[in-house]
C-alpha cells in the first residue's frame, strides 16, 4: 500500500469537520479561473482568509474577492475596471490584504480590509500577471509584467499604506539591464530576511526561472538563475534549451522555496521542480519535488505555501490516476515527501488549479476548481487539519 494512500486515509479520519465550501459555480458556458501569477490567489492574515478569482458569471470576465473571518461565512466583493483577469492576493498585517489585478485600464492594486477592497491604485496602463507581498520591516511591494518596447519586462514598485489607501513609490524594472527578450509571471514573497522575486525569463533563448532578492539596504540583487533546465542547442544545432514555466514562491519560517514546471525530461512533459534558499540568500541546486508516481505524465499548475513554523507544502494537478486530481507534498527533513491527495481533491471529474496557504497552526487552506465533465464548474475552498506522518 502506498504511503500516500495511507496518508489520505489518515487525513480523512482526522478531518471529519473539513467540508468544502463552494464560492462560485455555474453550468455550461460558465468559466471560473484561479490563475494568479504564482497561484497566489489565497492568503491568510490573522484570523482572516481571502480568495481572489475571475469568472464570467455576469457575462464577461470579472474579478471577485471572498473574505471570511475565523471560519465564518465568506463575504464576496467584485472589483476591477471592466474585464478583469488574474487577480492575486497577499497578506498584510492585522487581518488586511493586498490585492493586484489586470483589467481594461491596466494593472491596479488595492488594500483589502473587512469592508472589502479599498480605493483603487492604478499601477500601469498596460500589463498584467501581478503579484504583491508585504514584509514587516520593508513594507509592501507590487510586481507585474508589462511591455517595454518589443519585450515584456518585470516591474517593481513599493506600496505605501495610508488607511484604506495605497500609494505607489518609484516604479523600476527588476533588472536595470535593458531586456533582450520577455520577462513574465513575476511572483513576490517575503521571508524574514526580506522580499524576493522570481519570474520567467527568456534572455537565454528559452524560458528559465530567475530570482532576485532585496536586502536590508533596499537594494535588489542582480538576477540569478533559479531553474537548472539546460540551456543550449540539441544535436543538429536544434533549439536553444528545454522549457520551464509558471514559478511559485513561498516563505517558510526564515526561508524561501521556489517551485515551477520544468521540462528538462521532455519525454514526459512538465515535472514539478523546486529549489530552497540557503543562509547566504542564494538558492541550492534544484530538484524534482513530485514523487516518481508522476514521472511518466505531465504536471500542471504548481503552487506552494509555507508558514512561520517552517512547514512547507506544494500542490499541483496531474492525471496519474486516470483523471485530473490535485496532489500535495510536504517538505520533510529527508526531502520532499510522497505525494498524497484528499477525497475532495480527487476522484471522478477534474479537480485542478490549486491555490493554497498554511496557517500558523499548520492547517492547510486550499482553493481549487472542480469540473464534472458535463460543463458544471465549482470554485471550492477547504480548511484542512494539519497533515501528519510523512
Amino acid at each position, binding site marked *: 500500500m502506498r504511503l500516500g494512500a495511507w496518508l489520505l486515509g489518515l487525513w480523512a479520519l482526522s478531518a471529519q469537520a473539513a467540508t468544502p465550501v463552494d464560492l462560485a459555480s455555474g453550468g455550461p*458556458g460558465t*468559466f471560473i*479561473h484561479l*490563475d494568479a501569477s504564482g497561484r497566489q490567489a489565497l492568503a491568510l492574515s490573522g484570523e482572516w482568509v481571502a480568495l481572489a478569482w475571475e469568472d*464570467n458569471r455576469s457575462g464577461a*470576465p470579472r474579478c471577485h474577492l471572498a473574505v471570511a473571518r475565523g471560519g465564518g461565512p465568506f463575504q464576496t466583493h467584485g472589483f476591477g475596471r471592466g474585464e478583469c*483577469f488574474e487577480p492575486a492576493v497577499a497578506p498584510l498585517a492585522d487581518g488586511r490584504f493586498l490585492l493586484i489585478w489586470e483589467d481594461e485600464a491596466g494593472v491596479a492594486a488595492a488594500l483589502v480590509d473587512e469592508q472589502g477592497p479599498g480605493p483603487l491604485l492604478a499601477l500601469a496602463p498596460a500589463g*498584467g*500577471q501581478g503579484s504583491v507581498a508585504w514584509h514587516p520591516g520593508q513594507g509592501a511591494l507590487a510586481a507585474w*509584467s508589462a511591455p517595454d518596447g518589443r519585450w515584456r519586462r518585470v516591474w517593481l514598485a513599493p506600496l505605501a499604506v495610508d488607511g484604506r489607501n495605497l500609494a505607489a513609490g518609484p516604479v523600476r524594472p527588476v533588472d536595470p539591464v535593458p531586456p533582450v527578450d520577455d520577462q*513574465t*509571471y513575476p511572483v513576490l514573497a517575503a521571508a524574514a530576511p526580506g522580499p524576493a522575486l522570481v519570474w*520567467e525569463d*527568456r534572455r*537565454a*533563448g*528559452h*524560458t528559465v526561472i530567475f530570482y532576485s532578492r532585496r536586502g536590508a539596504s533596499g537594494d535588489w540583487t542582480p538576477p540569478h538563475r533559479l531553474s537548472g533546465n539546460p540551456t543550449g*542547442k*540539441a*544535436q*543538429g*544545432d*536544434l*533549439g*536553444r*534549451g*528545454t*522549457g520551464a*514555466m*509558471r514559478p511559485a514562491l513561498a516563505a517558510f519560517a526564515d526561508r524561501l522555496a521556489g517551485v515551477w514546471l520544468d*521540462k528538462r525530461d*521532455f*519525454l*514526459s*512533459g*512538465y515535472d514539478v521542480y523546486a529549489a530552497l534558499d540557503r543562509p547566504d540568500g542564494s538558492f541550492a541546486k534544484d530538484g524534482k519535488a513530485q514523487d516518481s508516481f508522476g514521472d511518466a*505524465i*505531465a504536471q*500542471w*499548475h504548481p503552487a506552494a505555501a509555507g508558514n512561520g513554523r517552517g512547514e512547507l507544502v506544494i500542490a499541483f494537478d496531474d492525471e496519474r490516476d486516470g483523471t485530473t486530481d490535485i496532489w500535495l507534498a510536504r517538505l520533510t527533513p529527508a526531502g520532499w515527501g510522497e505525494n498524497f491527495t484528499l477525497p475532495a481533491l480527487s476522484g471522478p471529474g477534474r479537480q485542478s488549479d490549486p491555490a493554497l496557504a498554511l496557517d500558523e497552526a499548520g492547517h492547510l487552506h486550499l482553493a481549487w476548481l472542480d469540473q464534472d465533465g458535463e460543463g458544471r464548474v465549482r470554485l471550492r475552498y477547504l480548511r484542512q487539519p494539519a497533515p501528519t506522518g510523512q
Partner: protein
Amino acid sequence: MRRLVPLLFAGLLGSALADPPPGYPFKDHDAGLRQARAENKPILLYFGRYGCAWCDHVNRKTFSDPGLKQIFSDHYALIYVDAEGGKRLRLPSGERVTEGELGTRLGAYATPLFVFMSPEGKVLAKIPGFKTVQDFQDYDRYVRGGHHQKQSLMEFLGSKP
C-alpha cells in the same frame, strides 16, 4: 534525442528559431479562428515552445517542403501558439485563457503538437512530435477529405486509402 543524430547538418535548411516555420502565413489564435470561419477553412494549430529543438527540427526538415507549404498556405487557417506563453486568447466557447492554459487543456506536454480543427474550432486530430512531409500529406487527406467524419486518424492511417 538519438533520432536527432542523423540530422546533424539539417540546420543548414532553415530558421534557427523554434518558432513558426518561415514563409507560412501563421497567425495568432484569435485571428486564425476568425480567418477559419470567414473562409470556411480547416485549422492547423501548431503548438510550439520557445527554444524547442523538435520544433526547430520539424520546421527545417518538413515545413521547408514547397508542396507542403502550398497545401497548408492555400487550404488552412494556420495558428501558432506558444505553449509557455501568457498571451490571452478566446476559445470557440468564448472562454478567455492564456496560451499556456490552452496547452494544458489540449495536453501539449510535448512540443511540437499539431492540432487539426474544423473551421468552428472542433478538434479533429492531435499529433505530437516530429512528422515527415508524407505524414502531413496524410493528415491533409484525412482532414480535407472528410474522413474525420467516419474514422479516427489512427483508423484512417491504418486503412491506407
